[in-house]
């Protein structure tokens, strides 16, 4: 499917294969087309050409597909209604009735136990994220689409949200999770798709991606960068070059880096700072999306 906004080609022939019962990560820099793709899957945006098929069925443009639920960007609700009333309304729009017990159970599952009677206007951003997940689960979807679900959550909330997402997949639901946090994707997803400029730059398992990943990058500052650079020459498993912000950019796995640092000490070069600038997957993500500078 193709989608343009004016002269900008937001999506260009994207095909996603998501294994049922798994959490599939959707990654990409800003403007890669992630949000447009999610909106298209939810029936909010019509493709200019091509068709969208989800769960084996063609998505009728501008109509929410059966068996699919979720939220894109931040979920929104009527602030002057309670959480219970908002969920009642949404259940009605799915032809269901949301009993108080059902809503209470759902709210407890997403970490909002006892908040059903509260007006949404008093909810924090993170609480709205949780309510968004509850609203999606109310639809009992086979495919759950979540756009940055951990946004606005505190560390404990992020941990709980990730655990819940994994639990949902274990229950047999398929989750398509869009995130800009590589760490989140690494923790939760089995498969991943990386979008770049509206096209698929990588599609496959996270393990396969790791196999292709270069060594992690570090920023090294020493007492003598020239000597440190010379010490790296001829060493296996380490790449050193001048860093654009001064010092040296070093790519190496942990063991090779340890050996290199010991060698520097032996050569009388003092290490003044060492910081990991990106993980292996981030390196690959940046390379795949052409953002590695």
């Amino acid at each position: 499917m193709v989608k343009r906004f004016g002269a900008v080609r937001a999506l260009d022939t994207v095909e996603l294969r998501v294994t049922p019962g798994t959490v599939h990560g959707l990654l990409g820099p800003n403007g890669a087309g992630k949000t447009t793709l999610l909106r298209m899957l939810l029936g909010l945006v019509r493709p200019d050409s091509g068709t969208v098929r989800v769960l084996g069925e063609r998505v009728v443009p501008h109509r929410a597909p059966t068996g699919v639920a979720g939220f894109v960007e931040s979920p929104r609700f009527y602030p002057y209604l309670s959480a219970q009333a908002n969920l009642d309304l949404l259940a009605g729009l799915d032809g269901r009735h949301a009993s108080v017990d059902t809503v209470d159970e759902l709210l407890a599952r997403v970490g909002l136990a006892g908040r059903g009677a509260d007006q949404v206007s008093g909810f924090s951003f993170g609480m709205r994220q949780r309510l968004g997940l509850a609203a999606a689960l109310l639809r009992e979807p086979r495919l759950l689409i979540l756009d940055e679900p951990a946004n606005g959550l505190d560390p404990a909330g992020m941990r709980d949200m990730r655990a819940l997402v994994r639990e949902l997949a274990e229950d047999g639901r398929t989750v398509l999770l869009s995130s800009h946090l590589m760490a989140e994707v690494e923790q939760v997803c089995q498969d991943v798709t990386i979008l770049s400029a509206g096209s698929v730059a990588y599609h496959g398992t996270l393990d396969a991606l790791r196999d292709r990943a270069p060594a992690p990058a570090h920023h090294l500052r020493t007492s003598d960068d020239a000597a440190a650079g010379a010490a790296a020459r001829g060493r296996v498993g380490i790449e050193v070059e001048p860093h654009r912000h001064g010092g040296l950019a070093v790519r190496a796995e942990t063991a090779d880096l340890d050996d290199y640092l010991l060698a520097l000490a032996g050569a009388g070069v003092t290490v003044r700072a060492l910081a990991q600038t990106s993980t292996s997957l981030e390196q690959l993500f940046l390379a795949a999306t052409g953002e590695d500078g």
Partner: protein
Amino acid sequence: MRYALTLYRWELEKLTAQWRVRAVFGVAVLAPWLFVAALRLQDAVPADTLFGRWVHLTGFATPLVVLVFTTQYALPLLISLVAGDIFAAEDRYGTWKTLLTRSAGRGAVFAGKALAAGTYTVVFVGLLACSSLAAGVVVLGHQPLVGLSGTLIGGGAATGLVLAAWASVLPAALGFAALAMLCSIATRNGPAGIIIPTMVGLLMQLASFVNGVDPLRHLLLTANFEAWHGFFTADRYYQPLVTSAVLSAMYLMSCLGIGYLLLHRRDFTEG
């Protein structure tokens, strides 16, 4: 249809939860009583207004004076307060994506909201009609009303004719509601959805005062607010009522049709 009715029920709940709607309904109920109280305190009468000269003689003149005044100046605004915002409110709250990712299609959402705006319009006009009739009759009495041909109309008949007069403005009122809904969808902005139909109503009113535009005048929605005059003549005539109903239906269908197409074709890329 089931989804449209569900949404309709929820729209009504949402409307009744809003202070603005409660305030407008409060005005509809209380304003006629305040108007009658003010009339009792002074000798002058609004003689320039149709039936204005009889306001001290019979309570049946009160609802007709209120009807003339409301349709000339206030009705498009009071209708647009809800109809002009009912779609744009979803843009303001960012809730389109919440509504449209459920099983109910866009047609059902549109129908539910249009029905709710129509219900508000009918209830508002009904409240104002009943309140002004009650205020007039209770405070000023139910003496016969002097008709436009000078004949006297007895209390029972006058009650029926007054209510019929108010009912006759409903098609045009619904036409304005449809125009406000179209503005709400097209501009995605609540204030614009309220102000534009109000200004259109005032401009139509001004245009109707200009000589030389008589054929055009009959095409204005505001002209239909006068279709009830024929009820109060010795030889009653109903042709303006028929014309009004047809013209209002045309406004209603074209505004709702365009509004539906705009909503149906819209890509929700924001919010």
